[in-house]
């Protein structure tokens, strides 16, 4: 039993839904109690999908448990087939249906329906959403894909694997990746699951290699295809300028093409923006990174190599990919945080004292509470992660998007210096917001209402609280006010922490500067 305030991933059947909803001509019949239909709104509201996800739920109730829930499943299966006329169906059970052991796979096998039915067993009490998506895609591909011989000398082509419904920027990433592949000179055979039909999966073998965009989802299927269809796969995920260049080289290598001309002419704005003097202030900014493994590892590379940040924390909730994250963390001299416990992540962020958090929607809340800027880099998805504009994470345009979304929450470079210089000026009073964020600076990045004051005060603060016996002397307080407001909070926290560590009761000017020396990097 695990105490959970917020969960990074849904149950595994939601992962299966993401595969089914991504595909065409596939319908998912889910044995599930009344109430599990809430999952539909993830697709219709968060993704603003214009149709219901192709899922039929049995929605059994207590009165059905005494009767024949297996019969209910069979009826639902038949009704769904007749109504939706899919090419193939997925069948499975949600957490509660798993307990009543009706065996949807077995029932479907004897249904006599004239289409392929794939049973996905997703252990709801052990596994989570990404695993469920990966397992479902793997089972589908195993069922439909066959080894095909490619004619010698035919132009190179690949499959794109991984994009799903409700994926973090998948919609925009695939546009970038398709454009990149076209420029390298590689044709796309099938993209799956997004937009593919079961019959398309049967053509997967007719490609030279697989481009794996999201290893959390497509890794297992790609490994099987490598073993059974003889298709190698890409390992590099093209997030950031360096990784995109590596990806181009890797794809060209697999396709037997020369990409040096493309690499020579390829430009992103990120390198120049990062080298321009305004970005000097980005140097060494302490950044804490948390997300799914793919996005977290990629973000760490971009943060350190392409923006000049200092990575002070790196972690993931994807236990399945923990090894990759541990390795990446080691490269930054860190111990990776592998956890799906929101409270543990919150504590780690507070302890690391970052100046920027790159995380999920959950870390956005933590960062807000700690007064630290934050940009979202990974699922779990929120309605804001489906912007109206094109906003990829991958490819060169994706790198431009990363630059903007990570840098804009910070104070602009020149502005930061000016505020420091003119801090006593009336326009630069402590409550003045960064001008580029407009009047409602706090309302723009964070539209969610503040917790009620009672709630806030009742939460054990992660910020070190001032022990009752500790006081600021008048001169100490006066000096503190001279510190620019955007670092004042941090200076205050650090000084109080220093005072506590050293048993200092009265914080004077001297304590303030002793603390500054102690914490200076």
């Amino acid at each position, binding site marked *: 039993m695990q105490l959970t305030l917020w*969960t990074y991933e*849904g149950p595994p059947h939601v992962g299966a839904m993401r595969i089914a909803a991504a595909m065409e001509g596939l319908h998912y019949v889910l044995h599930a109690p009344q109430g599990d239909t809430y999952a539909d709104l993830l697709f219709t509201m968060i993704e603003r999908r214009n149709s219901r996800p192709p899922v039929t739920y049995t929605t059994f109730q207590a009165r059905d448990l005494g009767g024949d829930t297996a019969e209910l499943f069979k009826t639902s299966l038949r009704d769904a087939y007749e109504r939706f006329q899919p090419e193939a169906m997925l069948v499975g059970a949600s957490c509660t249906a798993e307990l009543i052991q009706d065996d949807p796979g077995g029932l479907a096998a004897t249904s006599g329906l004239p289409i392929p039915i794939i049973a996905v067993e997703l252990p709801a009490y052990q596994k989570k959403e990404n695993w469920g998506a990966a397992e479902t895609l793997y089972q589908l591909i195993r069922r439909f894909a066959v080894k095909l011989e490619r004619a010698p000398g035919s132009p190179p082509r690949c499959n794109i694997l991984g994009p799903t419904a409700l994926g973090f920027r998948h919609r925009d990433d695939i546009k970038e990746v398709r454009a990149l592949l076209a420029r390298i000179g590689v044709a796309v055979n099938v993209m799956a699951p997004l937009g593919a039909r079961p019959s398309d999966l049967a053509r997967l073998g007719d490609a030279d290699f697989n481009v794996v965009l999201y290893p959390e989802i497509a890794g297992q299927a790609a490994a099987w295809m490598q073993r059974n269809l003889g298709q190698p796969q890409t390992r590099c995920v093209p997030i950031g300028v360096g990784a995109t260049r590596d990806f181009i080289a890797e794809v060209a290598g697999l396709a037997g093409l020369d990409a040096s001309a493309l690499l020579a002419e390829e430009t992103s704005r990120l390198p120049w923006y990062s080298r321009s003097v305004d970005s000097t202030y980005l140097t060494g900014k302490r950044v804490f990174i948390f997300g799914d493994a793919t996005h977290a590892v990629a973000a760490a590379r971009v943060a350190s190599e392409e923006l000049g940040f200092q990575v002070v924390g790196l972690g993931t909730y994807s236990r399945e990919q923990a090894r990759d994250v541990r390795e990446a963390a080691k490269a930054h001299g860190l111990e990776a945080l592998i956890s799906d416990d929101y409270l543990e992540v919150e504590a780690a962020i507070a302890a690391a004292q970052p100046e920027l958090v790159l995380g999920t929607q959950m870390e956005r809340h933590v960062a807000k509470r700690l007064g630290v800027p934050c940009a979202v880099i990974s699922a779990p998805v929120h309605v804001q992660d489906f912007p109206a504009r094109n906003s990829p994470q991958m490819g060169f345009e994706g790198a431009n998007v990363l630059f903007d979304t990570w840098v804009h929450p910070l104070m602009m470079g020149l502005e930061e210096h000016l505020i420091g210089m003119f801090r006593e000026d009336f326009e630069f009073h402590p409550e003045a917001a960064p001008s580029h964020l407009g009047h409602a600076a706090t309302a723009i990045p964070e539209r969610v209402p503040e917790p009620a004051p009672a709630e806030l005060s009742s939460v054990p603060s992660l910020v070190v609280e001032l022990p009752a016996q500790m006081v600021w002397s008048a001169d100490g307080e006066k000096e503190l006010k001279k510190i620019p407001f955007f670092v004042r909070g941090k200076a205050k926290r650090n000084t109080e922490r220093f005072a506590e560590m050293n048993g200092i009761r009265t914080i004077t000017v001297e304590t303030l500067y002793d603390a500054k020396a102690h914490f200076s990097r």
Partner: protein
Amino acid sequence: MSVTLDRAVEAGCDSRPILRERGQREVFCGLTGIVWMHRKIQDAFFLVVGSRTCAHLLQSAAGVMIFAEPRFATAILDERDLAGLADAQEELDRNVTRLLERRPDIKLLFLVGSCPSEVIKLDLNRAAQRLDRRFNGVRVLNYSGSGIETTFTQGEDACLAALVPELAQSDEAQLLVVGALADVVEDQFMRLFGAMGIERLAFLPARRAGGMPVVGQGTRFLLAQPFLAETGRLLEARGAQHLPAPFPLGAEGTTLWLRAAAEAFGVTPERFRSATAAGEARAQQALAAPRAKLTGRSVFFFPDSQLEVPMARFLTRECGMQAIEIGTPYLHRQHLAAEMPLLPPEALISEGQDVEKQLDRCHAARPDLVVCGLGLANPLEAQGITTKWSIELVFTPVQGYDQAADLASLFARPFARRDVLRVPLAERPIRASGQSPSAIGR
């Protein structure tokens, strides 16, 4: 899926046929009630004992993390709990201890049962009694919000029903208003009853665990919500007397609801009029604007909160709308006895759901407005059908005179929006099973 058109005469004066359906029900489970109950009872914490699905539901239904640290959480069962490798009761104790250490402000803890905890027959009642003894100053109760037993607002019923046996006994005469209302609405009702001279007035639930009302022979209660079947039954078992009335939605509904109490407490008609006339007039005046948008338009309700019957009564009688179908997850004959005769005879009332068949009926009827859940709203909008998502009707203060126009405006806003927008409807072809292939990956 069997459908029976039951033409049997129902008890009472209303004898309309009811369409009863059993099929896929596109509804929330009772756990969702936690989203508003934890706001209402300000020192209560709701600990769901369930699966990752339960946690995910609460997170999604709560609009993705409204509060940085909410007063609800899920103790997620894992394999070890199911296989009996871990003693579920010990695990619960450990989690509750961790929770209460973190939140010393909590005075009332609900252990909330879920589908999986019900199916494995985890005894939360025993756990609640044990934990209640262990933690001084924290009352620990339990109820089930599982989808196999409850639909959406029935979670509130189950929660309040768990409170009823806890209420202190007193046979003093009092009026009890039952059902979670927004604080602002409670305050308005308090003033109205005060003006009638009904001074002994209490609300269930109270805003704080320590302030729950007393109950006994002298208690007469008004239901503020139509979904409180079990709570009403238990209050009657404690000697309280139910005052049948329509529900306080709209000016008319509010007056009839208030009058039921006034009559029971011997308030003279003159005093009742002087207490309510101003509010009623204000409500009617404010209703004029939204009514102009709604008059003559048709409405179709998908089942959601059990509020559908009083909502439809309000829209048809006070806003000039025509009701085509009034779908409700459960029709409580007795509690709706005063509402049913006020519904237009031509409206089809359906109980339960087979969502595919209901969608077919909806498409055939082409209503001007569909009231439905969030899973259906955008797909219907994409087909050019104007919708009002029903969850907002549960989360918004809508009861009483001064909210009557707000309630009408909730239904009028989709029309107003449609009138102002000068953008085309979705250009992409709409398919039953997904997005258009041409729209993907290009």
